């Protein structure tokens, strides 16, 4: 005891004893059986409620397979039509990683047909416009080229075409809501953005005019060769959910990259390389902000969830 007294004054001991003797009964009497950590409601009954209650979460933990048809905008020498689709896995209801890809079909624009029909084939443009060798008796070259069967190569044979594409992309779904059509039909609608990169396969006029290559006047130089371009991609889209499984989508996609769409020798010499140099190569590629509009039908695999 003396030891304790030495370390704790008597007055302090008395104080502690008094406090304990007084506080314990008071606490036992006055304390509640529950402790409340309650939010104070400052306004009406919806204060503090989430913006959307019991939100239909179409995406979280689900796999989307969406076949797509698309077409390019502002075409110069070839129209391109895309048949493919996308596969997305949604880690959350607003973020996914997926693949987009497919094949392109191409057709001549009116400009390509006009060039084939009326371009004069002579010394001035012999390296830029296919000579249109007539191999069919019914086809005559004359001042131009009919572009008919057996009359190849034509100008359309030298114009570049998109062949296929494969992209990896992240998709974010920041906006969602519903759409009232004629105040009667309701469709759950989501707006999304995506960003990614990948490869585009295309057919472009083969290089010519350099050492070991055919002359750019040679018929063989108007053939197309396969190329692969590394390309960024981004865009926006809308998804309309018909039910828990099926949706319809519309999207805009950009695929910006440089390519030689006409197969021309247009650059490589003079100030800023703005003049023809007698060769067709990478210098003749020009930047194009390729744009694609797509329509898809998506199928969501997995069970749809509902938020709290």
């Amino acid at each position, binding site marked *: 005891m003396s030891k304790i007294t030495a370390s704790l004054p008597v007055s302090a001991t008395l104080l*502690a004893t008094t406090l304990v003797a007084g506080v314990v009964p008071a606490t036992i009497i006055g*304390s*509640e059986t529950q402790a409340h*950590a309650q939010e104070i409601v400052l306004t*009406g009954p919806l204060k503090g409620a989430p913006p959307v209650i019991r939100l239909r979460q179409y995406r979280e933990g689900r796999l989307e397979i969406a076949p797509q048809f698309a077409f390019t905008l502002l075409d110069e020498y070839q129209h391109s039509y895309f048949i493919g689709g996308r596969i997305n896995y949604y880690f959350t209801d607003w973020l996914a990683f997926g693949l987009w890809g497919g094949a392109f079909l191409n057709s001549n624009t009116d400009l390509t047909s006009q060039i084939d029909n009326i371009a004069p084939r002579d010394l001035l443009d012999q390296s830029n416009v296919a000579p249109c060798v007539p191999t069919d008796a019914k086809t005559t070259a004359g001042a131009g080229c009919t572009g008919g069967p057996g009359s190849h190569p034509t100008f359309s044979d030298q114009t570049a075409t998109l062949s296929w594409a494969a992209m990896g992309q992240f998709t974010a779904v920041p906006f969602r809501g519903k759409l009232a059509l004629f105040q009667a039909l309701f469709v759950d609608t989501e707006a999304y953005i995506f960003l990614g990169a990948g490869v585009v396969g295309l057919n472009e006029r083969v290089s010519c005019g350099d050492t070991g290559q055919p002359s750019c006047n040679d018929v063989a130089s108007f053939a197309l060769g396969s190329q692969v371009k590394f390309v960024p991609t981004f865009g926006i889209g809308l998804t309309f959910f018909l039910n828990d499984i099926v949706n319809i989508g519309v999207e805009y996609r950009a695929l910006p990259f440089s390519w030689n769409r006409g197969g021309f020798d247009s650059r490589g010499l003079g100030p800023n390389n703005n003049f023809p140099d007698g060769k067709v190569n990478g210098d003749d590629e020009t930047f194009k902000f390729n744009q694609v509009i797509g329509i898809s039908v998506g199928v969501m695999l997995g069970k749809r969830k509902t938020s709290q």
Partner: protein
Amino acid sequence: MKQAQWLLFAAALALVPSTALAQKKKPPTGGGGTTAPTGGAGGGGQTIDLDNPQGTQPQPQPDQTQPQPNAGGTGGGICEIDPSACPKQADIGEAAKKEYKKEIYAVEQIYVLRYHRVELTPYWGFTLNDQFVSHGGPGLNANFYITNVFAIGLNGNFYSGLNSDSDFNFQTRRATRVAVPLTEYSWSAALNFTYVPVYGKFAGFGSFIFSYDLYATGGVGAISTRPIPVIDPDNRKFDFDPKVCFNLGVGLRIFVTRWLAITGEIRDYIYPEKLESLTIANGPIGQPSDPNSPSNPKTWVQDGVDITNNFQANVGLSFFLPFSFEYRLPK
């Protein structure tokens, strides 16, 4: 001192409540969504409902288990308080004959009412389908909403000096010696009708909500265009010439406030175009009266007309006037 330690330990135990809860809010009592304040000290936290005037407390609900006086449909309480106000069978019959508003909006209390408001939309237009010449420029839509979903209005575009001849034209001309007839625009104006069949709201990032609508528009007016001389620029000088022009479009408005929206639309301007002739008359130069002279303006354009579609994307801001409005019905 050991005794004191035990006493402190016992006190601490006594201070610990029997259960510790991070408790959710108690569900509001009463059916109106209001929460009655709990009067006891520490009895569950205080609820302050600013929707109720201060000092007015929710009245206690009548005990539903107790039989209600005159609950048999003979008038109820009002008949006891004021017999003259007690509804009679004839009154009920008259009330049943009254016409009622059958229309029930699918989305109640639309965020923005357009009825009898003026919408002004300055925008910038971008060409979507002309790879040869882009016709960008400013424009203005002015609409007056006759009903909440139908408007009549004017639309104008200003292109003069803003047409941009693509480098692609030059490359094609130089490489193939084939020239594409080009056209530039000066202005366009149209009388339009607008219909808003679709509206709704979006939740953004799960944290805010905004309203939008989709509209269809169409009209008729004029567009002033002229060919850009590329076949024979030495002899040909074209003047702008107005042509009748139809337009059809769809648009999306995202409302920032009840009077301000961000607007995007795609509109197709359809008109008959006179294109530059691809051939040059081989008569004497400098004799405009000679029908075979390259100086004769009649030889400058092709026969017939080409129906041209100018798809244009417009991005702008919509201002609704007056800025405020009143709902006809309460929430």
